[in-house]
């Protein structure tokens, strides 16, 4: 009688343990899946934030270049505080563009408020002789944000593109 009772208790105990084990494993699997989804969402939110940052910085820097005179208004490489290439909004000064070409890349990047991002600035004129390119060459596999404006340069229309990129 006692022996039978013993087996009965023993078998019930086993079933109970397996039930708990299975339910716990299922719970952990669901938890890990949900956690994975959550981490993926965080990663997407972070990417969205950095994209917005890149967008803000690119557009601010390019507008500052093509719409302002810079500071001081007759700036040179030795005294520049803010880089602006315009004689008036969207009309570029040849002297200031030349100054930008001659300027140290890291100084220009810093003055344009780009922080750790790199940039490439291109003026594509109707006459290719007037084309200008400043900045770094794009590497493969970089995240690029590109902004474009149409300006007047050396008496003709030109497209200005400003690419900001991050590795």
């Amino acid at each position, binding site marked *: 009688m*006692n*022996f039978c*009772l*013993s*087996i009965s*208790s*023993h078998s*019930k*105990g*086993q079933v*109970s*343990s397996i039930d*708990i*084990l299975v339910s*716990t494993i299922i*719970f*952990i699997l669901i*938890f890990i899946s949900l*956690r994975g989804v*959550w981490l993926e969402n*965080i990663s997407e*939110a972070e990417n969205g*934030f950095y994209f*917005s*940052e890149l967008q*803000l910085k690119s557009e*601010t*820097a390019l*507008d*500052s270049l093509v*719409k*302002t005179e810079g*500071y001081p*208004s007759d700036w040179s490489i030795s005294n520049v*505080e*803010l880089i602006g290439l315009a004689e008036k*909004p969207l009309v570029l000064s040849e002297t200031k563009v030349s100054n930008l070409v001659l300027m140290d890349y890291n100084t220009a990047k810093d003055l*344009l*408020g780009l*922080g750790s991002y790199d940039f490439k600035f291109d003026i594509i004129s109707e006459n290719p002789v007037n084309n200008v390119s400043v900045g770094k060459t794009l590497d493969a596999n970089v995240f690029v944000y590109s902004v474009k404006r149409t300006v007047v340069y050396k008496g003709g229309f030109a497209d200005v593109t400003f690419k900001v990129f991050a590795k």
Partner: protein
Amino acid sequence: MKYKIFSKGQVSVETLLAIIMVFVLLIVVFLQNYTVSYSNETLMDIYTKKGECLRFAFAISKAYIEGAGTSISYDLKENTEILKQEKFVKIGEDYCRFLAIPSQSYSLSPSTYIIRNNNGLIEISSS
């Protein structure tokens, strides 16, 4: 009587092990969840401040770029410093560069401000 006690003991050991395992797993899950909640709040705080820093710096730059006479109303939500020499907005530990020349350094508390371009110099005043 002896068998009875012995058989109960066998069940108890298994149950005990199962309960211990469940408790250990629950503790692991709780700690992970706590870490996730903690990092969630920290991330929210970081991105709120960093976002505010970027937006305010952008507003200052915009006032400068759009030329003399431009006024922008800005609802500032964080304690903020504007560093004239460095041309930085500072909110908490975040620094954001703006493209403008402020007339002076500022220390601002949350409120609504007018950012004004006065002949190329940026002035900030309460609205």
